[in-house]
């Protein structure tokens, strides 16, 4: 029991973060909050990967005297790449929100949907 609950603490944390982030993306109407949720969701995956590579009592993977147990560096390197992708995504999303705010005058999803529906309706009924 202890193994499952405490030994896998990192994985529990990753799943919890994942669900929190996912819920924020779905439930929040504010576009900035959606981006925050997306970030939490991505960070959960980073935690998941990093935990995967860690070995109890392992050091950094360096060739040297007395180093026998070391963590797997590959998942850590992969996550460096994923972090870079995450930063690019966040930057792009924020840039889009700035432009949305300029053209719509709001970043609340509900109001944006209303404006979009009005525009769709105008287009559909134009002859």
């Amino acid at each position, binding site marked *: 029991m202890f193994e499952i609950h405490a030994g896998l603490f990192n994985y529990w944390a990753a799943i919890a973060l994942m669900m929190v982030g*996912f819920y924020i*993306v779905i439930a929040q109407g504010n*576009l900035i909050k*959606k981006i925050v949720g*997306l970030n939490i*969701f*991505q960070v959960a*995956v980073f935690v*998941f*990967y990093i935990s*995967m590579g860690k070995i109890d009592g392992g050091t950094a993977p360096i060739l040297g005297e007395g180093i026998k147990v070391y963590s797997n560096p*590959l*998942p850590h390197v*992969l996550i460096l*790449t*994923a972090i870079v*992708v995450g930063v*690019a*995504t966040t930057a*792009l*999303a924020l840039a*889009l*929100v700035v*432009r*949305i705010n300029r*053209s*719509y005058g709001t970043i609340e999803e509900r109001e*944006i949907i209303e404006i*979009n529906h009005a*525009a*769709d309706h105008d*287009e*559909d009924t*134009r*002859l």
Partner: protein
Amino acid sequence: MTAEPNIFLILLVIIPLMAAPICVLTRNANVAWSISMAVAWAVLGIAIKLVMELSAHDKVLYYRIGGWDAPWGIEYALDKVGGLVILVVASIGALTLTYAKRSVEKEITSERIYLFYAMLMLCISGLLGIAITGDAFNLFVFMEISSLSSYVLISLGKDKRALTSAFNYLIMGTIGATFYIIGVGMMYMMTGTLNIADLSSILPAVADTRTILVALAFLTVGISLKLALFPLHMWLPGAYAFAPSVVTIFLAATATKVSLYVLIRIFFTMFGRIDVFETFPLQPVLFGMALAAMFIASLAAIWQQNIKRMLAYSSIAQVGYMVLGIAIATEAGLTGGIIHIFNHALIKGSMFMAVGAMAFGLGVTTINDMAGIGRRMPLVMAAFVVGGLGLIGIPLTVGFVSKWALVSAALDAEMWPLAALILLSSLLAVIYVWRVVEVAYMRPSPENAKQPVQVPFSMLAPMWVLALASVWFGANATFTMDLAHSAAGHLMEGF
């Protein structure tokens, strides 16, 4: 795996990838276009060379990054299904760039045009990379390169709704990609490898674990989001409707097809030696979603006024046909799914090019705007009709070849109701195509109708190349069918 490394595999990705920053440095629309144009046609040349090599010798082409042997280094591997996908991406890329110059000058602010070409180059590079990489994590990186650049491309649309569509696509696309890396991470935990060929040989040993089951679920859902498989298609209609015409042409003909390729890779290569369709309850789920896409999205298309949105819903329905082919999970079914990747790219490419030409000539956005357009822009409307016939699946068009392959696959697998449903859903395509044809040819032009602006040859030519290709490969399907068939055979055997 001791094959001679093929340098052209890496060039296919490197050339457009390097062209992107060069386009940015030029800060000039015409120079950026010339560079992109040269690159796109060079890439097409390389893609044709590689596909010729693939069909001549029945083998897989390899390249090892930095000379590191797989599975330690990243390996690029191209087989026939990948070859078909790079052929689609490269030829649509070259034709789109030819078409792009005049259309983009009209639709995008002039100081942003050079950036547009940089983004298109990145997108092409990412899509080609997905098709040739042999590494599951590298595939994620390419997926994000192509996705991030397509969000930017969509947001360049004139209408402000382009911005919200791009934002929605960004949120959904990122969730999809993140699901994919969760799946890859779980597979790595169980197998210790990221190399796709290696995964394929190690996965059977751990196939019974819950981790792998969950990994497969994450991979399937993540890619289905990117693929716009019903009901995960919500981002697609807005993105296609409000993006600049050129972007819609390129993405409609390539992006969802490449995601479909990833789905095929997951089911038939990574999980190729496990009978995924027997072990996991995949088939009923995929059948349900594919059929729902075919019927619900086609019905939705019938009610659209915006012409690009109508075609977007039709694309969702067509994705349904492709997934249906995969889910039949026989060699014939897979052949049908793969051939429809190629055929649908021709059909939708030519139709969106026709719509782009109408937008160029008369500023058309809705079906009502198209009243009498059959007489005012006869050449453009004729290409649209040729594409429309393909969507319905009239004999002598590529659509017929696809539907024939799918229906006969369903019959071979003794799934009679499926064959009937494929034919029935084609009738819905008749309705939405006919609606446009009726307005364009039967309804008189409005009295104060403007004369259309002359559409330049550089836009008409690519449109007619695709429209005629959709008839040529419909009448003479040997080359594409052979390629799709041997690709499917190769996949069914495992990598």
